[in-house]
C-alpha cells in the first residue's frame, strides 16, 4: 500500500530530489514487483499453488531494505514474494525474477542461466546480451525496454499492457 503510494508520488514533474539513488531504487523495486504481476511463467515452474515467487538480486544489492519492505505482505495470486540475495556463482535458475545490478557483469550471469527466469538489468548492453527487461532513467523518470525474443526463449509470457508501457521493444521477428 505504502509502495503504491510511493510509486505514485514518483511521478513526472516531481524529480528525484533529496535522495536520488534511494528514491530511484524504491521506484525500480516497485517496477520489479509490477513486472511479476504482468508476467506469466510456465506452469511447471511452480511446485504448488502457494510456491513463492522468488526475486533474486545477484551481486551487490542497491535496494537496501526498501525491497524487503515493499514485498512484505504482497502476493501474486496466492503466491508470496521472497527476495534472495545471490552471488554470481550461485544457482540462479531457482529465481523467477533475477535483478542484475550495474555492478554485476552481465554476460557471466546470463551465460549459466536456465530458462523461465525473467532477467531485469540496468546496463546498456543488457538486452543485446540476452536480458529480457532493461530499466533506464529518462527525463527523471524510470522507464524500461523489453527484449521479446529473449522472453520467448525463456518461455515467458509478458502482458500486452506491460508491453504498451515499454519505451522500446526489441524483436527480431515481427509479431
Amino acid at each position, binding site marked *: 500500500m505504502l509502495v503504491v503510494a510511493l510509486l505514485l508520488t514518483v511521478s513526472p514533474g516531481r524529480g528525484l530530489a533529496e535522495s536520488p539513488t534511494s528514491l530511484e531504487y524504491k521506484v525500480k523495486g516497485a*517496477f520489479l514487483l509490477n513486472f511479476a504481476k504482468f508476467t506469466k511463467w510456465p506452469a511447471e515452474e511452480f511446485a504448488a499453488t502457494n510456491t513463492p515467487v522468488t526475486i533474486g538480486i545477484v551481486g551487490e544489492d542497491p535496494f537496501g531494505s526498501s525491497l524487503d519492505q515493499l514485498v512484505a505482505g504482497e502476493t501474486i495470486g496466492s503466491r508470496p514474494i521472497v527476495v534472495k540475495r545471490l552471488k554470481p556463482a550461485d544457482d540462479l535458475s531457482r529465481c523467477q525474477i533475477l535483478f542484475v545490478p550495474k555492478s554485476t557483469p552481465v554476460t557471466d550471469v546470463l551465460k549459466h542461466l536456465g530458462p523461465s527466469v525473467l532477467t531485469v538489468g540496468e546496463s546498456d548492453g543488457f538486452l543485446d546480451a540476452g536480458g529480457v527487461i532493461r530499466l533506464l532513467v529518462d527525463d527523471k523518470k524510470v522507464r524500461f525496454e523489453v527484449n521479446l525474443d529473449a522472453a520467448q526463449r525463456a518461455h515467458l509470457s509478458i502482458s500486452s499492457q506491460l508491453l504498451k508501457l515499454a519505451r522500446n521493444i526489441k524483436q527480431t521477428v515481427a509479431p
Partner: protein
Amino acid sequence: MNRSFQSFPIKRKLMAVMMLTSSAALLLSCVGFVGFQLLGYIQNEKQNLATLGDVIAANSTAALSFGDKSSAEDTLRGLKAEPSILNACLYGRDGTLFATYSRDGSDQSCPPGIPRGGSETSEYNRLTLSRSVVLNGQNIGTLWLQADLAPEVVAYLKRAVTILLCVMGASSLAALFLSRKLQHFISDPILGLAKVARVVTEKKDYSIRAKQQSGDETGLLIGAFNEMLDQIQRRDDALRSANDLLEKRVQERTEELRASEATLLGVFRATPIGINIMKGRVFHTTNDYLTETFGYPKESIIGQSARMLYESDEEFNRVGRELYGGLQAKGVGAVETMLRRADGVMRNALLTSAFLYREDPSAGVVVAFSDITEIKRAETALRDSEVRYRTVIDNASEAIWLMTDTFLECNKSACELWACNREDIIGHSPVEFSPPTQPDGKSSAQAAKERIDAAFGGEPQLFYWQHTRKDGTLIDTEISLTGVTIGGQRLVLAIGRDVTERKRAQAEMENLHRQLLDVSRCAGMAEVATNVLHNVGNVLNSVNVSATLVSEKIRESPVSSLAKVVALMRTHENDLAAFLTQDPKGRHLCDYLDNLAQYLGKEQTGIVHELKSLNADINHIKEIVAMQQNYARASGIVDTLPIVDLVEDALRMNNGALVRHQVHVVREYIATPSVPVDKHKVLQILVNLVRNAKYALDDGGGNDKRLTVRVGMDGDGFVKISIIDNGVGIPPENLTRVFEYGFTTRKAGHGFGLHSGALAAKEMGGSLSAHSDGPGQGATFTLSLPLHQECEKP
C-alpha cells in the same frame, strides 16, 4: 358533445364506437410497443456502457500500476469511436484524478472524489457508470464514464412516430371500411325493430311483429318485444272478453238476485213452518202456513193478538214467558204448546223465537210455528214400539245380547242364563263367563276371540260353548253369533240357549239309539228269514203244482182198465185162445192192451218229467236254505258267473207259470263278461222280478203277453239286466213306493220281494230301479251290477 353524440343515429354511433375503440387500442398498443422498445434500447445502451467500462478498466491496469498517465490518456482517447460517450475519468487508488477524456475537450466534467465503484446511475438523458480497476484482486483505481442518450432516443422516437402515424392512418381506413360493412348486422335489426315499434305506437295495432333474424341479444330483444306484443294482444283480448263477461255476469247476477228474492219470498210463503213477525205478541207479518195448516185466513190474523190461538190465558202467559223470557239472554226461545185450529181442534205445536234484528228488539220478533202433532204421535208410537220390542226381547227364552269384545246390551234371559244381574254383565268380557278351557281343550279366550272375529267378518257362527255361572257352575250352551251394523257401528248379535238338559237328553237318546240298533239287527235277521220263507214258498208253489200234476195223472191212470182186462181174461180162462181169436171182444183185446201199454208209457214219461222238476225245485229249496245259512254266517258266496246263465235259471224257475199263462218271452242278450256275484242273491232278485212281471201281465189281461229280458252293459262298468213287461204298469205315485217294505198291489203279496231285492242289489254294490210310463204302459225293472265287485264285506 355528449348530448350531440347521444342524438346520433345508431349507424353513426356504431361506426364511431368502432373507430374510437380500434384507434384507442391501436394507439395504446403502439405507445406500449414504443415504450418497450425504448426501455430495451436504454437497457442495451447500459449493457454497452458496462462492457465498454470493463474493457477500458482492464486496459488501464498497467498504466495505473506503473503511474503512466500518458498511456492511460491514450487508452481513454480510444473512446472517440463511441459518439455517445461524453466524458471518461480515471482515478487513482487514493481518489486523485489520474487521466480524463472529454468529447468536447473541457476538463471540468469529472465529479470530485471517487464515485462509488460498480454503480450505474441514469439521470435524464445521461447514463453514467463507475468501474473499479482491479489488478491481481486489488483495487488500484476507478473508471467513471458518462454517455449521452438524447440524440439516439430522439432519432428513434421520430422513426417510431412516423411509422405509428402511417399504421394508424391505414388501420383507420380499414376500420372505417369494415365498420361500414359490419354495422348492418347490428343496426339493421334494431332499425327494423324501431320501425315496427313506431308503427305499433302510431296505429295501436298489436298484431304486427318484428322480424327476428338472429339469435343474439338483439334477436332475443326482438323475440321479447314480439312476446310482449303477444301478451299485450292477449291481455287486450282478455280484457275485452272479461269486460263482456263482467257485464253478462252483472246481468245474470241481477237475474239471479231477482230469482233468489222470488225464491226466498216463495220459501217464506210456502215453508211448512209458520213464520211470523210479531210485535208485542201481535201478528205483524205472516206466511201461508197458519192459513193453510190452522185454517185462519190471513186477514183475520194480521193485527190480532196471538191469544186467539190459545185455550186459556194461563197457557198464553206461560208460552209468553218461555218464548220471550230467554230471548234477551240466549237470543232464542223455544216452547211446546197446544194451539187451536180454526175448526177448534187442538194441535201440538213447537214455537221458536228470535229477534228480527238483534240490535233492534223493537223491530219485532220472528216466531216460527210448526205443527208437531204427527211427530208427537210418531214419538209415542216409537216409544210403544220400543217397549214392545224390549218386552219381546226380555221375554224371549233365549239369552240375547249385543257385544264387541265386551257386552253392550243383554236381555233378561241372559241374566238368567248366567244367574246374575244386568250390571254384572254389561261392560264385561264373555271370557269372564267361561272356564279357562273348553271341553275340546282349547283356551276359552282364544276360541272366543276367533268366533267373535269370524262373526265380525260376516260369517255367522253356531257352536256349543261351556259357560260359567256367577256361582261357578258350568253350563252347556248353544251360541249363535251374527255380525250386525247398528248406527254405523259393527257389533255382534249373540243368541244363547242353555242346552245342558238337551245334552243330557241327547246322551240318553244315543244310548237308546244303540239299543234300537241291536233290536233292528234282530229285526233284520227276521226279515231275512221272511225272505227265505218267501222264496221257499215260491218254489213250494212249483213243487205243489208238480205234485198235484203227478197225483192227478196217477189218479186218472188207466191202471183199473188193466184189472178189467185181467178179469175178462179170467172168465175166459179155459178157452182163452178161442176167446182171443173168435170172440169179438177177445179179438180187440190185443189192440186194447197195445194201446194201453202205449198210453201208460207216455204217462210214465210225463210223471218222470214232473218228478224231475219236483226234484229240481226241492234242490232249489235246499240251496235257498243253504244260502240262508250262509247269510246267517254273514258271508255270501261270490262266484264269477256268466250273467246270462243266471237269467236263464231265473226264467226256468218260472217256466211252468210262464207257459201256463201263455207269456211270450223275448231274449235280447248282448255278450257280457262274467261277473263276480252272489249267485243266490241275484237269482232271488231275478226270480222275483220275473214273477212280478208275470203277475203284471196277468193283471193287464191283454192277449199279447210279452216279457222282454235284456242283458247289456253301460259305460260305467255296470251290467244291466232289464225285465220289461207290457202289462198293467205302475201309476207315477206308486213308482217311488214300490221298493218300500210292505208295499204291494197284490192281495196275496206281502210287499217284501222288491224291498229285499233293492237291499240285496245295494249290498252287492249295484242298484235296482223301476220305470213305468203309467198304468197300462208296462213296466221296466233294471238290476245293475258292478263288473268288479268292491270288497264290501261286513
